[in-house]
């Protein structure tokens, strides 16, 4: 007899007893008599026991052999339970398939979200003793709250903080990733690089994967050491992991750099999501920053650095803050023009990881906790579905259990055996879940372009442990109640129940129904939330950002990075405009220093006639340098006055156009439209007054749907920049002109980087990317939950048959 045959024997016995019981009942006997008649069949166990003895394997293979009262060897029992579980599952492949798929999806959803949490929050910086690291940034004196907006600090200030502080072992500075132009064999490509002080890697406590990091002397004399450290992923993907990368050279922004080392794998700077390809010594700032940022190493008003420090042993964050604040107030006294009204904020390093677009770490934590809760509930729904299946199965296996109990198996052993089954099912689902989670991550991270710069999801031991724990826990959650129910079976109960109904008991259906109502309500809530968000995203698309997007294409260029001087750059701007204007399908084109929705405000706008403001209370404003024809091309309406024309030249009177927000705030009053015209303002960083010649409509400059910001436009002829963005207005669809435009720009100057040309709607997509990912996840999980329930409803309305169907 095979092991399966033995289980069948038990089934046959159970059926026989059930038949006997029913027949007695239908023959008119009362329950008690019927029971007695049936049980009398079991009076003489001797022949059966003899039969079992004759088949030795029965004792060896059976999970709960006759007469086992639970005193067996724990390990041996476990092994036996496991084999029995495998055998039982093998016999019900459809049930196993459904359970494993349902749970696998639930566990997969959890693994995906947990991996994101692990990557971005639990373990975002692959460096030692993260707790000792502090992020330093400038903030406004009057806002004492730690959540107040922070600003970069200047290089000169960083040097003072580094020299004067008594609380940090070392204090390093770094910038955000910036675009640089890589020139190779006549072509130009785009790379991202961060300027870092020479002690940056030392402060973080990293060791290079290859070569070395920066030497102290490479941070001293500006512009002398053209060296770079490469991102590991960049080395692998862009340079194929070339063995001779250290010592190799790269031509960046027309300067030849030597690669001296490769950063350790997984390190993308002090960034949670997007990092640079290269790190360059801060002393090379002059060669890297656009011309308006020149003198960034000495000019305290040009702040582009973030700082990070490693605390000395025994120093608390509060002590560090006190020490740094004292230095900040001294710096404010010594350099009032740049520093008055500013102080410095010392925060844990993780606060600096997410950048301004992703919010604080508290917000990230809240968002991930919410997502984890949602997927947790999805998994619970999956568990309850499988538990329900198990209950149905348990009903079908009730007689089997009853016979085992009658044969002397202890209840404890039965529960353990059934739990072994469900935990095994949980582990199997966990394996499927890991695959589902991996696929989910591929889907999520695969949408990001330029993979080398992006964080790679950390599928490490933590995630594996998490998946293992929730798999086992899942097994217990869905397995416990059915196991206890099934093991409670006594022969008489089982028979009575079997006589009453072949499927589930009324009590259980009621319980299942009330559970189900809650679940359906929950998934509808999820879907409704998702739908609401989706609607607001849809509305966002219809919203008017204050510029036209339907016929717009934009292309960033940095002729300065190609080594162009002022005259050459101006000639380039002119030639590009002429070439592009000749392309069929192009309505107009112009230049602007700002990319739509990427502008950042600067402080220090002065309005003539207004009290000069203290440094602490300066007017913040967007400054946009634009060429003639910009307003028409970008679709920004001029409400009053005129736009810039060819009469606004370098040597003509300085002019500016303000937006309606500036007009309302500084020249208020009904019908104030034309009042600003002729008034004078001074833009940050300039020392001459500009006359206002026009008022433009207020639009969105930094983010989609933002609160109105001040904006001042100045003509390109009067405020030269060596990095500008080309705006092209198409007659038809902007997609059609993308390639021709890119081609013309490259023909005008092959050395100038001209990649990543985008349409207006692609820019909006980018602006709404995070919201869309969030809504996408909510919808997927909501649909998953709903799908699980509708299947469950079918199995309930299918009634008692499910018990047999899933066997």
């Amino acid at each position, binding site marked *: 007899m095979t092991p399966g045959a033995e289980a069948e024997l038990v089934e*046959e016995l159970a059926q*026989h007893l059930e038949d*006997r019981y029913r027949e007695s009942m239908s023959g008119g006997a009362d329950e008690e008599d019927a029971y007695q008649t049936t049980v009398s069949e079991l009076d003489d166990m001797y022949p059966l026991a003899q039969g079992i003895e004759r088949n030795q394997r029965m004792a060896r293979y059976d999970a709960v052999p006759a007469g086992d009262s639970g005193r067996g060897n724990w390990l041996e029992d476990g092994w036996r339970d496991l084999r029995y579980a495998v055998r039982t599952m093998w016999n019900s492949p459809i049930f196993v398939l459904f359970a494993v798929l349902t749970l696998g999806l639930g566990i997969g959803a959890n693994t995906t979200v947990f991996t994101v949490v692990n990557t971005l929050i639990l373990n975002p910086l692959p460096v030692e003793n993260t707790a000792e690291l502090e992020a330093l940034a400038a903030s406004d004196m009057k806002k004492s709250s730690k959540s107040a907006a922070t600003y970069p600090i200047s290089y000169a200030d960083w040097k003072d903080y580094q020299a004067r502080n008594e609380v940090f072992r070392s204090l390093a500075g770094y910038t955000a990733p910036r675009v640089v132009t890589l020139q190779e064999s006549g072509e130009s490509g785009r790379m991202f690089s961060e300027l870092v002080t020479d002690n940056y890697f030392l402060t973080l406590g990293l060791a290079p994967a290859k070569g070395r990091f920066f030497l102290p002397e490479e941070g001293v004399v500006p512009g002398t050491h053209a060296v770079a450290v490469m991102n590991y992923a960049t080395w692998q993907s862009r340079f194929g992991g070339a063995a001779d990368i250290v010592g190799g050279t790269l031509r960046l922004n027309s300067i030849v750099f030597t690669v001296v080392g490769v950063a350790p794998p997984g390190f993308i700077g002090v960034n949670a999501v997007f990092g640079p390809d290269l790190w360059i010594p801060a002393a090379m700032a002059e060669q890297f920053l656009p011309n308006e940022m020149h003198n960034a190493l000495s000019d305290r008003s040009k702040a582009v650095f973030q700082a990070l420090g490693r605390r000395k042993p025994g120093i608390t964050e509060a002590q560090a803050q006190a020490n740094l604040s004292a230095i900040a107030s001294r710096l404010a006294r010594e350099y009032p023009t740049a520093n008055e009204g500013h102080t410095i904020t010392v925060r844990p390093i993780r606060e600096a990881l997410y950048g301004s677009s992703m919010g604080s770490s508290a917000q990230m934590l809240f968002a991930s906790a919410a997502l984890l809760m949602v997927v947790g509930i999805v998994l619970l729904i999956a568990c309850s579905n499988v538990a329900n299946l198990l209950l149905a199965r348990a009903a079908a296996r009730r007689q089997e259990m009853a016979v085992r109990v009658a044969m002397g198996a202890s209840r404890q052993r039965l529960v353990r055996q059934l739990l072994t089954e469900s935990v095994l099912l949980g582990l199997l689902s966990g394996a499927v879940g890991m695959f589902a989670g991996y696929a989910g991550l591929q889907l999520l991270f695969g949408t990001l372009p330029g993979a080398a710069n992006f964080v790679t999801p950390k599928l490490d031991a933590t995630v594996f442990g998490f998946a293992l724990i929730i798999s086992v826990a899942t097994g217990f959650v869905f397995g416990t109640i059915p196991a206890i129910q099934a093991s409670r079976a006594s022969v008489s109960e089982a028979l009575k129940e079997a006589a009453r109904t072949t499927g589930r008991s009324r009590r259980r259906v009621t319980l299942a129904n009330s559970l189900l109502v809650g679940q359906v309500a929950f998934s509808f809530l999820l879907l409704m939330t998702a739908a609401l968000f989706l609607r607001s995203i849809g509305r966002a698309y219809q919203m008017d950002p204050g510029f036209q997007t339907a016929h717009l294409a934009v292309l960033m260029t940095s002729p300065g990075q190609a080594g162009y001087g002022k005259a050459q750059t101006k000639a380039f701007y002119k030639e590009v405009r002429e070439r592009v204007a000749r392309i069929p399908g192009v309505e107009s084109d112009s230049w602007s220093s700002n990319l739509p929705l990427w502008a950042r405000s600067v402080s220090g706008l002065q309005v003539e006639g207004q009290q000069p403001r203290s440094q602490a209370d300066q007017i913040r404003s967007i400054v946009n340098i634009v060429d003639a024809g910009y307003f028409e091309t970008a679709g920004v309406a001029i409400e009053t006055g005129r736009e810039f024309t060819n009469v606004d030249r370098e040597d003509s009177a300085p002019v500016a156009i303000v937006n309606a927000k500036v007009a309302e705030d500084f020249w208020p009053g009904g019908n104030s439209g034309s009042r600003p015209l002729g008034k004078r303002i001074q833009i940050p960083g300039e020392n001459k007054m500009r006359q206002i010649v026009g008022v433009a409509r207020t639009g969105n400059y930094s983010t989609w749907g933002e609160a109105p910001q001040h904006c001042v436009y100045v003509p390109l002829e009067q405020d030269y920049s060596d990095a500008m963005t080309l705006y092209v207005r198409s007659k038809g669809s902007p997609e059609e002109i993308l390639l021709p435009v890119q081609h013309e720009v490259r023909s005008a100057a092959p050395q100038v980087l001209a990649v990543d040309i985008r349409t207006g709607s692609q820019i909006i997509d980018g602006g709404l990317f995070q919201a869309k990912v969030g809504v996408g996840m909510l919808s997927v999980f909501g649909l998953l939950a709903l799908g699980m329930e509708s299947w469950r409803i079918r199995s309930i309305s299918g009634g008692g048959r499910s018990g047999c169907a899933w066997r």
Partner: protein
Amino acid sequence: MAENLTDPEWKKGSAELLVLSLLEDQARHGYDISKLIQIRSGGALRFHVTSLYPLLHRLEKQGWIEGRWVEKPEQRRRRYYRLTAPGRKALGSKQKSWRDFVAVISRITGIEHA
């Protein structure tokens, strides 16, 4: 009389013959077999589950009968047993030796077959 018939000794000799005979015409499941034995013996002969099923499995192991799960709509599956070719042969020889045995007993005791 009834008590004598339920004596294990009696059954032991005849049980195999009874089961095989009942399966001669058609396949039956265990409960069917036990009921037929009970009915046809007028309640005098009864098999308990604890002896019937080990017997069925022993016969199956010997290759005389063959069990097979049959599923019918709206019903739980049941295991039906049918006679195999060796089983048919064994039944034949058992019937013959039983007839011989009865004939011998009859001749000795003078009891005529009813």
